[in-house]
């Protein structure tokens, strides 16, 4: 595990420069000298943690308040892997992946995905060293500790963060344990089933 040193300067600096430009060009009064703000921004770790907070919250809300409620509690509609064909709700993991693909299409500079040491789809097996180590690390820690590393892929350097993906509802457990392609069938509630991997370019 390594600690990043570089600062990822984001919105604050941009906003400061916008304010500065507006101040210089937008007023009739002579522009008063504006002191340059001190460098500000997020570290890659803070940025990744923030992104994960949004992702995991959305995921938990969808799992509990949409899928578990409508499928398991109120029995209004099913959630299915083949949600389009079966006119059902997308599974929480699919919802997450669809979001990740939609983000990738917008090319915002960072990527994220859902991987597992026991994936139903083999394409979601950890591939890079950081993924392999990170998924094992968060699983061994029972989801209590995140994993951060720097890695070089395709000649580019990335800050890679791995967060535990925990079974938050019975639906997660029963689906994975009962799926014909699942390599592990003894998951229990609150088990670490995989991990969210977020990559930021350095």
């Amino acid at each position, binding site marked *: 595990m390594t600690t990043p040193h570089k600062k990822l300067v984001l919105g604050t600096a941009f906003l400061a420069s916008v304010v500065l430009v507006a101040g210089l060009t937008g007023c009739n009064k002579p522009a008063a000298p504006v002191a340059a703000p001190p460098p500000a921004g997020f570290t890659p770790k803070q940025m990744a943690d923030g992104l994960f907070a949004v992702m995991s919250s959305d995921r938990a809300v969808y799992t509990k308040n949409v899928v578990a409620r409508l499928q398991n509690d109120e029995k209004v509609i099913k959630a299915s892997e083949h949600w389009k064909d079966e006119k059902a709700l997308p599974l929480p993991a699919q919802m997450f992946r669809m979001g990740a693909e939609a983000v990738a299409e917008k090319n915002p500079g960072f990527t994220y995905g859902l991987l597992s040491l026991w994936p139903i789809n083999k394409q979601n097996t950890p591939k890079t060293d950081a993924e392999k180590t990170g998924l094992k690390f968060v699983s061994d820690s029972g989801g209590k500790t995140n994993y951060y590393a720097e890695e070089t892929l*395709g000649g580019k350097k990335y800050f890679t963060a791995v967060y535990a993906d925990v079974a938050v509802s019975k639906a997660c457990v029963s689906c994975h344990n009962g799926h014909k392609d699942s390599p592990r069938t003894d998951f229990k509630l609150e088990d670490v089933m995989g991990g969210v991997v977020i990559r930021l370019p350095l």
Partner: protein
Amino acid sequence: MTAYLTYRWRGPDRTAFLPGPTSHGHYQIELACNACHTPWMGVKEKACLDCHSAELKLANDSHPKSKFTDPRNADRLKVLAADNCLTCHKEHVPERTRAMGVMLPDDYCYRCHQETVKERSSHKNYAFNSCATAGCHNYHDNTALYEDFLVKHLDEPKTKSAPRVASRALLAFLNESERWPRKSALTAAKHDAPASARADKETLHAWETTSHARAGVNCSDCHLVPDAQSKMKSWSDKLDHTACAACHKDEVGGFLAGKHGMRLAQGLPPMQPVLARQPMKREAAHRELGCTSCHGSHEFDSRRAAVESCLACHNDSHSLAYKNSPHFALWEAEVKGGAPAGSGVSCATCHLPRQKSATDSVPRVLVDHNQNANLRPNEKMVRSVCLDCHGLGFTLDALADPALVHTNFIGRPARHVESLDLAARRLLETQSKQTKP
């Protein structure tokens, strides 16, 4: 030389600048260089997706670009740059272009999916150049081939009982939709064509018997055309597809996306059979394709458009065999009133299929006028067409038999696709594992 080249570039015929013949997919628009190229003859990054993104989305593309832009796939991109359409599909290189416009050798799946043979013992005897053969897998569209879909359609009969295609039920849709207010039906006496248009009795009768007249669509609704600049409307005798698009936007959109209208979509003169690479009837050689070339200009007979209009131009073996096929026998029985509506199978039944759709959130059945959308690979036809009447097993076998396609399905499939057998076997294995204590 420079003057000559400048003349050729600015003129209507730019063939001198073609670096080589284009594929069957693009030859019609090969002179619309700008459709794909940047001003200095680079390839536009979005050129492919500008035309094909909608169908890829509809097919739930198994290999979208977004899957490969993830840095974790950087090693795979070195083996196969699957984030770029041009890695597999290049143009102007006929000597390297094969079926589906793919240039790679047939074993391209192996580059990323080597583990399949290890993980699936059922696949160990299959060569990697057979993955994408008919009936098994496709690179983009697997909506009719994924395992659970196969399982859902195991043990289906060759032909379903009382097979029917969906009714268009246009009137019911119009009644529900708010976009087109209801108007009273019109007769020839109530036509509003100006005297200068010299509407003859025959034309008025043709119009009077159409659903246009029944829905209150008068002459001026189509023939008053807005000027491109002033937007002032004036009468026009000659209409093009834009007049139809005022009401039939989805149908015209499909027409422009397919082989019949793609030249118009690129600002080229209309397609003519003489320009086609497939065999066409000599007498139809210079017919210009637009809405009225198939539908007629006033009668708008959808039955004629569904068979006779096609056969008036197409002269290939599949088309020529149609009238001896069991599909045509069903069509003839329906047309003659001896069989229920929707039981006949016309050219359009398969090639311009009826799709469940929605306009302004009102459900409808729409005829997809992009006759290319389900043509290649032909498994794309499975869900949109064949399963309306046939079981999946028979369908995959029939589509995998080129000779049977050639004769327009006269006879029985001589090939068997094993994918349903494999799915059934795996289902049994899974069930037996789950029942073990």
